[in-house]
């Protein structure tokens, strides 16, 4: 997911007295999960496969982690699969979209995560779409779940993901003339130095990083 991490305090060279300076941690994202997924996840995937024969082509990976099912889905198929999930599998609710920026995940830097809820069956699953930073287009789901309107605007505002087909994709939380997309990892937190009794604390993003 993200780059290898060194040490325990984010300090390079000297300065780290924690004794963990030589530690290297590499981050691996959980790979695909094999059947059986457990719980109702098998039934949901089976139902989706029956209702949508192109399942194997549209779904890149199925991940079950911490008791939650994530379907990694190709963006071209997002709307088709969503319609089937809504109409056939009774996922009437989409609880918004949350963007995540993974700068180290080459050609899949921007992820959009859609938590779905079926009130009929009391089930929850999650869709995840990943797109390259150079082509940040994802089809809009406003036609499928109208309530995603503001959520997609927020994700556009914060991450710069362009939701094609959205009825009015404008900034929603930041001012209209704002430059950049604040929640991307390459957008610094910023801030101003804080002075108190003669001592100055640098802005948060320049402070020593505890990682």
């Amino acid at each position, binding site marked *: 997911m*993200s780059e290898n991490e060194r040490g325990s305090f984010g300090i390079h060279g000297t300065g780290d007295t924690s004794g963990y300076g030589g530690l290297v941690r590499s981050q691996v994202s959980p790979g695909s999960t094999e059947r059986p997924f457990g719980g109702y996840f098998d039934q949901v995937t089976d139902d989706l496969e029956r209702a949508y024969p192109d399942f194997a082509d549209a779904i890149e990976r199925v991940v079950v982690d911490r008791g*939650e099912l994530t379907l990694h889905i190709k963006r071209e198929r997002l709307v088709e699969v969503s319609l089937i999930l809504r109409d056939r599998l009774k996922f009437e609710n989409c*609880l918004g979209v949350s963007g*995540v920026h993974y700068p180290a995940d080459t050609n899949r830097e921007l992820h959009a995560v859609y*938590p779905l809820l079926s009130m009929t069956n009391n089930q929850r699953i999650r869709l995840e779409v990943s797109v390259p930073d150079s082509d940040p287009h994802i089809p809009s789901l406003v036609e499928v779940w109208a309530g995603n309107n*503001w959520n997609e605007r927020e994700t556009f505002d914060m991450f710069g993901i362009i939701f094609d087909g959205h009825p009015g994709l404008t900034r929603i939380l930041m001012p209209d003339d704002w430059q950049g997309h604040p929640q991307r990892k390459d957008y610094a937190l910023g801030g101003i130095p804080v002075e108190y009794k003669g001592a100055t604390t640098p802005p948060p993003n320049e402070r020593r990083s*505890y990682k």
Partner: protein
Amino acid sequence: MSTYVDPYASSRETTEGTVFSVTGGDWDSLVTEIGQAKEERVVVNMGPQHPSTHGVLRLVLELEGETVTEVRCGIGYLHTGIEKNTEYRSWTQGVTFVTRMDYLSPIFNETAYCLGVEKLLGIEAPERANQIRVMMMEFNRISSHMVALGTGALELGALSPMIFCFRERERVLDIFELVSGLRMNMAYVRPGGVAQDLPKGAIAKIRETVAELRKNFKDNEKLLVGNSIWMKRTEGIGYLDLAGATTLGITGPVLRSTGLPWDLRKMAPYCGYEQYDFDVVTADTCDVYGRFLIRIAELEQSLRIIEQACDKLEKSEGQPVMVADKKIAWPSQLAVGNDGMGNSLDHIREIMGESMEALIHHFKLVTEGFQVPAGQVYVAIESPRGELGVHLVSDGGTRPYRVHFREPSFNNLQSTSAMCEGSMVADIIGAVASIDPVMGGVDR
């Protein structure tokens, strides 16, 4: 220097620079101008500082006479970048940020966030911590509904309920102060449990408050329930049926006013809610009056849960309120000293005078924090406004990689247009009040 011409003010040049003179318009010319207009469509800005818009909400209204033809919401005035900020702090410090999102339901924000962190860690809070969380959440539901009912009534012109509702809210805030030391934004719920156990005598005080609240709620109800003026302002107003609510992703009292008994405390229990006996309140009127009745009835259900939580807390006296794993549990416990609430002196004595190991652990845990295994989770709880969801992503570090809150206020506010278009201007106030948006939560 180029001359700036302001359309609304005449100007003249002086030695000090340009001086603008702002004068009022001429009503006669304004009336003539409006009389000449072909249509009666008027665009009016309501807010962002209008007292009836629940904080800094801006509504752009298109009117034809008194009828609203289009409503658009302008939000973002209270955006504070909390989600971004949490990425620069440890997992425990995140609690202090998220509690400030929806400032009327801080305990819910904290609990949702902590449940997410606990799910990522694969741990569960001890039973007594869950009982305290449930008790605090239900008190918080009461204090939040008190504001919703009080300000909602105030906005529609009923002044007395507001005074009584805020009086009851004060009683609840007193309980918060007794338990956590703070009235709002307590950062009391922590990953792995709660910050500290209940102080001595808290249960007795809570039981006393519950009895007072129950009596006062009954009196307050008489002010508005069945009141014909109130019903004329609320019945059939802000109509949104089940199909509309589901399409727009509406949850909470607004959804339950369509007759669907959807409450996450029943449908997907967390913090041990399955052990409590309470009812999910619904209405079938889909209007402002229905939502008002639901909030009133939910107060009593919250009191029932608090009483059951008190019974459980009496039995679990002395049990831990934080996970036993010292690599996660916040080391210092709070205590009341002669200068107010602060770190427990016993703990400071131990780390400064007795145990070097304890000092190292305290230092590492407070400065660096604990690591959370990589992965993502989505956790949802039933806040006073609906489904409060938290999407947390960890990259295995000591700080969150991404924190996203699915705020019920944000999602529910989208229904303003559906509820208000075609209604009268005055009914917008009631409709927005019945959604009960908190702008701190909407804008985050």
